[in-house]
């Protein structure tokens, strides 16, 4: 993905599953996306109705029967609640919103994808999307392909399961975080207003990430703290350098940095320990290539797995 592909608009994808967590993250998304140039897409992924598991009778038979009774597809209620929340938060204020309904056929599912888009006169868009996919993570990633997003926000539905369990069934958040080409925010008790803790290791990717997140943070007017962890005492000046470099860059952009932190120790533990003081821990994706990243994980993914609060992997 390169810069030219990114549309001028700031696009936010919020994955809803009906949990309290996901509506908390919607609040945050609303804050990020309050500007005219931001679009918010609410997504609910419904697993494909298929009959191998239902003893040979396709689930669609049951689904069609339900529709005949006038019963809505699962997820529609969640999306409507999300839309109502955005209305309450004044994201969809004014009467000039035009509504447009669209349907896409999907192989193997009679009901396919459905979406309702609301567009106002300035071109701001709010979309409710009910998507069908073989599993939830795939659905979220496919949605990214349809319209590139700047950030995907999803709730960590439960604690991550650790290596043994995820070998069987990787958690949705984990899979999306590994594969999404854009920033991914995994929300846990996401509270607005405690600021972003941006962790940097001085690499170029991480500098780029610092810049990107600073832009994001300025969208929601969140205070920014910078942090770098040195592996040992000897490494400390390096870490200091990293933070100073980042701070200077942000100052040049006219973004204020509230505090700079230098810690010594295991980066994962240090970051997790200090994390809960902030709304959000921001990590850059490790520069390890695919295979290595897949099997060994990285600091970013370990933090994401074990942190007590929300974590964003910036890309």
């Amino acid at each position, binding site marked *: *993905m390169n810069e030219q592909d990114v549309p001028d608009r700031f696009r936010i994808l919020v994955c809803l599953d*009906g949990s309290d967590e996901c509506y908390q993250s919607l609040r945050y998304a609303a804050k990020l996306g309050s500007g005219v140039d931001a679009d918010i897409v609410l997504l609910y992924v*419904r*697993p494909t*109705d*298929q*009959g*191998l*598991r*239902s*003893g*040979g*009778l*396709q*689930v*669609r*038979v*049951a*689904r069609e*029967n*339900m529709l*005949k*009774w006038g*019963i809505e*597809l*699962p*997820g529609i*209620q969640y999306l409507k609640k999300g839309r109502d929340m955005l209305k309450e938060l004044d994201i969809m204020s004014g009467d000039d919103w035009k509504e447009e309904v669209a349907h896409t056929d999907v192989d193997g599912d*009679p009901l396919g994808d459905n979406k309702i888009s609301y567009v106002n006169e300035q071109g701001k868009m709010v979309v409710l999307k009910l998507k069908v996919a073989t599993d939830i993570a795939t659905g979220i*990633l*496919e949605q990214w*392909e349809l319209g590139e997003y700047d950030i995907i926000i999803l709730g960590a539905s439960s604690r991550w399961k650790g290596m043994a369990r995820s070998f*069987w069934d990787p958690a949705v958040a984990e899979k999306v975080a590994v*594969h999404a*080409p854009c920033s991914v925010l995994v929300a846990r008790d996401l509270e607005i207003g405690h600021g972003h803790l941006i962790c940097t290791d001085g690499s170029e990717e991480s500098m780029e990430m610092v810049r990107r997140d600073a832009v994001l943070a300025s969208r929601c007017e969140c205070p920014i703290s910078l942090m770098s962890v040195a592996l040992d005492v000897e490494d400390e000046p390096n870490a200091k350098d990293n933070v100073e470099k980042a701070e200077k860059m942000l100052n040049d952009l006219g973004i204020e940095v509230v505090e700079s932190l230098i810690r010594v120790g295991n980066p994962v533990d240090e970051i997790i320990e200090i994390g809960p003081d902030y709304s959000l821990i921001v990590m850059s994706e490790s520069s390890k290539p*695919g*295979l290595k990243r*897949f099997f060994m994980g990285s600091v970013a993914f370990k933090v994401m797995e074990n942190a007590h609060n929300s974590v964003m992997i910036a890309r």
Partner: protein
Amino acid sequence: MTLGTWLNLYFFWEKKWFFIAMIVGAFMLHMPLPQGLSPEGLIVLTMSVVSVILFITEPVPLPTVALLIIVGQVVLMGHESSDVAKSLVTDSVLFIAGSLMLAVAVVKQKLDKRIAWLIVRVTGTKTWRVCLGITVVSGLLASFVGEHTVAAMMLPVGITLITLTSDDPKKVRNLAAVLLFSICYGASVAGIGTPSGGARNAIMIGYWKEFFYDPTNPETFKFIVSYVDWMIHAYPMFLIQVPVVTIILFWSFRPEYRDLSRAVVKLRNLIEEEGSMKAADWMSILIFFLVLVGWIFISGDIGMGTVAVAGAATFLVAGLVKWEDINSGVNWGVILLYAAAISLGLQMKETGAALWVAEAFLNTLAPLGANEGFGLWAAVSVLTTAVTNMMSNGAAVAVLGPIVLKISTVAGESPIIIGYITAISSSFAYLTVVGTPACTIVYASGYLKATDFLMVGWKMTIASTVIMLVAAKLYWPLLGI
């Protein structure tokens, strides 16, 4: 970037279990021949192990496993292609195909509203009575037409009662759980009741005949188990489980509303808009009744499969269902899957692989004292329950059937008892969403969480196992087995 660019690596990760299964298979084929196992036996055993790994982990679409089994029988075992093809279709497979077509036909008849009306008329408006009513009716129907049919028919009834009570799913979470679980567990416990209650029963009846029936030996005639025989053995067990389902559900979830009068009144109005029963409705009930009569009285002569297929044909002739609906409503891959699994099961018997596994299993159980009598029954039940929770219950019986039947002969137990225990235990897949067809369908409504199934499922599993073992110990001896 498209999915494709990073897919190369991800492809292998997603399909890891396929490669693991193949490596296990290659390893097994090249290991030294275990004592007492023929070379063909080893090949069949290898194919079974690989299939089971693939059934459970599902790295590839399940019908692929069926195709691989067919290829394996020709390539690895050197059978004639035509012989393998012939071994695929048996009466059990015909029955599975026919009853799936019947299932679609029955669901399409819109009798669900009539049934709902009947339920609420009899039960009144108390929540527990409505739930018990739903369990009883779901169960009675499911015991004849299969649980998936009933789940598909009754699901809208349950959801309508929920949404008429409250629009906010959070306020009716427990109510939704009791109502929907009443449907799926009611249907699940009933699947044991008659041979047409589930594919697994038909598969077991087929195995009994294939394994033990000898036309020249009158002693073996008891291994032709008729529709009525099965009902006498298993139906009472289902009836006992019905109130247990309601008790367990109300013990696990405390519904927010004790009374559903608002919803019931609205539901009644909704149904009354339908008007009185039409000729087509009566016709479909008549055909269904005839199929039932056919299963009970003539399936011994012409086969259960033939009756099911005839029933489906009658629905089509009468114009009550369109072929397109049947075609899109049945997952034909499942039929292929059962066909291949049964064919592999029969190979397990013929090559002696089943006997070898049976002996090894009994030797393992011997130190626990579970190699005979009641202990063995319990062990077989636990084994089946474990396997069925991991894969479809029909496939579980197809794979386990030959082994447990050999176990029974080696241990000197009645193959009939062990067969019943296996077929019945295979319906105890209450723990997972994918365990039984009814659970899968009800889960598609989006009202239940996967953890709900675990929370209430273990209680159901224990209750059902105990009821079955008690019946096996006390009731079946009265029937002379």
